[in-house]
C-alpha cells in the first residue's frame, strides 16, 4: 500500500492530505481532516448522511474516493454557516424543530442547500423528491419539509 498525495479545497480552504487509494472521501473528511460533521449511516449511498458537494454537485461522500477530491472543491456542513451567522436553512431547522436526534441533519442541510441553489422556489413535491436520498428515521420528514420551504421563502426575500 502506498498513500497518494492529494491537494483539494474544503470549505474554501486549500488542504493537502495523504490517503490510501481505497479510502473514501467520507473517511478522508472524518479521519484525516477531522471534519466529523458528515456522518456514515450506511457507507453504500443509501442514506445520504454523508452528503457533501463536490464542485457544486451534491454527492454521497461515501461513494467518492478520497483521491478523486484532487483538484476539487468540496463543501461540507462545517462550511455552511458564515462565521457566527447561521445559514437560513440552519436557522429554520431550529425554528421548526426539524431535527430530533440530529444525525441526518448535516446531510439534509447540505442537500437542501444544493436544492435551493438550483431551484429557489421548489414545490413541496420537489423538495420531497430531492431529499429522498436522505433518510430520517425520527421526524417523519414533516417538519424538515416545512423548514426547507420556509427557508426557501425567506431566501427569496
Amino acid at each position, binding site marked *: 500500500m502506498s498513500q497518494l498525495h492529494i491537494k483539494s479545497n474544503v470549505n474554501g480552504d486549500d488542504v493537502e492530505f495523504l490517503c490510501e487509494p481505497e479510502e473514501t472521501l467520507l473517511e478522508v473528511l472524518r479521519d484525516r481532516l477531522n471534519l466529523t460533521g458528515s456522518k456514515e449511516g450506511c457507507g453504500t449511498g443509501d442514506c445520504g448522511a454523508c452528503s457533501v458537494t463536490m464542485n457544486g454537485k451534491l454527492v454521497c461522500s461515501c461513494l467518492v474516493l478520497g483521491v478523486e477530491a484532487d483538484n476539487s472543491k468540496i463543501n461540507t456542513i462545517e462550511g455552511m454557516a458564515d462565521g457566527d451567522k447561521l445559514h437560513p436553512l440552519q436557522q429554520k*431547522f431550529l425554528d421548526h424543530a426539524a431535527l430530533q*436526534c440530529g444525525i441526518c441533519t448535516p446531510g439534509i442541510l447540505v442537500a437542501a442547500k444544493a436544492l435551493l441553489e438550483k431551484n429557489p422556489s421548489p414545490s413541496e413535491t420537489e423538495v420531497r423528491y430531492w431529499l429522498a436520498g436522505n433518510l430520517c428515521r425520527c421526524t*417523519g420528514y414533516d417538519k424538515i419539509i416545512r423548514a426547507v420551504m420556509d427557508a426557501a421563502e425567506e431566501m427569496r426575500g
Partner: protein
Amino acid sequence: MSPLNNNSQARQFKVIGTRPPRPDGIEKVTGKAQYGADLNVANMLFAKILRSPHAHAKVLSIDTSAAERLDGVKAVITSKDFDRFSSGQPNNILENSIAHQKVLYDGHGVAAVAATSDLIAKSALKLIKVKYETLPHVTDVDKAMEKSAPIVNKGYVLENVPKGHSENVTSYFEFGHGDLEAGFSKAEKIVTRSFKTEATHQGYIEPNACLASMTPDGKADLWCCTQGHYNVRAVCAEIMGMETSQLKVTASEIGGGFGGKTLIYIEPIALALSLKSGQPVKLVMTRDEVFKATGPTVSSSMDVKIGMTKDGKITAGEAKLRYQGGAFPNGTVEMGAQSAFASYDLKAVKTQGWNILTNRPMQAAYRAPGAPQAIYAVESVVDELCEVLNLDPLETRLKNAAKKGTLSSYGPTFDDIGLIATLEAAKNHPHYSAPISKNQGRGLSCGFWFNFGGDTCVTLNVNFDGTIGVTEGNPDIGGSRASISQMAAEEIGIAYEKVRTIIADTNSLGHNEITDGSRVTFAVGLATIKAARAAIKEMCKRAAMIWNIDEEAVRWENGSAIPAGPNAGKFDPLTIEEIAGMSSQTGGPIAGHHEVNAEGAGVSFGVHLVDVEVDKETGSSKIIRYTVFQDAGKAIHPSYVEGQMQGGAVQGIGWALNEEYIYGDDGKLQNPGFLDYRIPVASDLPMIDPVILEIPNPGHPYGVRGVGETSIVPPLAAISNAISRATSIRFSDLPMSPPKVLKAIKDKQRGNG
C-alpha cells in the same frame, strides 16, 4: 395544530407549552455535535468483528495466529478472552456479542481484532480461520414451535410453559377476565382471523459505535452512543469483572435509538480489546452489521377472535400471540398480551402469549415493544366486524372504549385516561368526514402504551449569577434537554434561556434508568421539578436568614423570595440573582437534587386516521392523508411532542407497507441494508397532521404522560384497515408489500380469494 385544552388547568404556565429553540440545536445544525463515531483520541486503534456466515453452527475451532502476525494488529479476541472475568453466571448480552460454543444466527460475532487502521483490521479478519459444523436452523416462528424443530438455545424454558411444544418455547403468559364462552354466545357476529407480522428494525441512522480505553489496573473510560449509559456501565462492569466505580461511561450524542440502543453489543468487546492491546479502541458497526446483529423486533403469528352485537358492543375478545425474538429469551410477548385489548371496556377477555427462540438476532425493544403487533391484529378484527355489521368504526370504538373505572384487559382498573377524548377529537376532525376518491380507503385504529418511570437522578445547581445548571443522566434522543430546561425554568420562575441542561457521565450522578418506555420527560421532568423545589426551599431559607425571619415566613414567586404574608414583615423581594450572588456569604453554593424511582407514569392512548390509495394493477399503496390524535397529558414542548407523534406514525407506515426482515432458506438475512430494507423516504409521504390532547396524568406535577412510543402502535392496523376497505379484501399479513397486495387482488378477481 395547537394543543386542545380539554381540561381546565389550575396552573397557568409561562414556559411549559412554549416552543423555544433546543439548547443543543446549533451544534446539531453545524456538524459540531459529537456522536458515537465522532471522537478520535491519540494512539487509538480501530476494531472490527468477525461474524458468522451460518445461521446455526458449532464453533469447532478458531485460529487467530495469522491475524495476530499481521503488521499493525495489536489484539485479537474470542469469547475465551472473557472467561477470566466471568462470575460463572451465563450472560446473554456477552453471548450475543461474541458466540461461545455455537453461533446462533447469521451475523453472530465470533472474534474481534484491533489494529492501527480500519483497513488493517479488515484484512486481519480474513486471516482468522474458524471451523464450523453447521446445524439445522429455524427462523420462522410457527416452525420453531413444532416439536421437531431444531433446538436453538437450551436451558431457557420457564416452569409455566405448557408441555407439548418444542424446547424453543421459553415462556407462556395469559391474561384476562370474565367468561369468554358466555361472551361469545351473546355475539351477533364472531370474526376469527390469523395474522402474521415480520420483524422490523429500529433503523436508527447512526450505527452503534463506541470508544473504550481500559488499563490493567481495572479502570476504564467508555464513550458510546446508547439510550442508557448507566446500564452500559452496569452490564459491562459485570462482564469485565470490574467494580462499577472504575468504569466511567460517557454518552455521546445519539443518532436515533427507538429502543434499539437499549441493548449492548460492542462495548464489552472494545473494552477487552483495549485491555489486551493497552491502547484506546474505537469500534463502529457497519450498516450490514447493524441489520444482522442488533435487535430487530419480534416477528409474530397471532390468532384473534372477537364477538360483537349488531349494535356494535363487543361481547368477548380472545387473542393468541406467538412471538419469536431471536436466539435469546425476552419479555416482549407478555407486553403484547397485556396491551392487545387495552383500548376496550370488556366483560370477557383472554390473551395468551408464547415466546419462541429462533436462529435470528436477539430482539431489542422498538417503541412500545410487543404492542404494535397485538393491537394490529385486534384492531383489524374490530374493523372487520364494523364492516360486516355495517357500523361506523369510530362510533363503535367509542361505544366500547376503555375509560376511568374500566377493568383493563391486563388487570388494573383505569384511572383518568384519554381514549374517549382522543376518539371524540378524531370524530370531530375534518379528516373523518372528508370525502375519499376511487381506489382509496380510510382506516382507523386505536393504540396504547403503558409508559414507564424508573430510577432517576437530577442535580440542579444555582450559579452565582442566578442562572441554573441542570445535570441529568438520560441521553437526549429527541429534544429532552429543551423540555427539562423548560420544566426547571417554569418551577424556578426564570427565563428558559437562564437554564442549561447537560447529560452527566456515570460518575457524576446516581443510577439512571435507560432512556426508554417514554420515561424521560415524565421521570427526569419529575425529578427536575423536585430538585428545583429543593433549591427553592434552600433559597427561601437564605432569604429568611437575610431578613432574619422564620423560613416558613418566606414564599417563592416568579423567581424571587417574598415574605409569605403581612405578618412576615415588609421586605422587598429578593431575586434569585441576589440570593445566588450572596450564597457564599449565607452558607455556600445552592443546589437542589432529587433521586427517585419515579412511579406512576400513566398510560397513553392514541388514535390514527389514514387515507390510502391502492393501485389495483400493481398492488402499490400510497398514503394520501394522515392524522394522529394522541393524549400527551401535558405537552411541555409541543413541537417535540408533535415530532414524536409524526415520527412514530411514519415508522408505523414503513412497518405496515414495506419494512421486513427477509430470511432465505439458508437462514441468512437477505436484505441487510437501507436499499432493500425500505424505510420510508420523504417522497413516499404526505404531511403528518398531529393533534395533541392534554388529559393530565395525576402522577406528574404538570400532568405529563410519555409520548414517545404510543404513536407507532396504531399505524399498522389503520393502514391495513384502509387498504382492506379500498380493495374489499381483508389483509392479515405485514408488510402489505405490493406483491402480496396484488396477489390478493388477482386471487379475488379469479374468484379464489
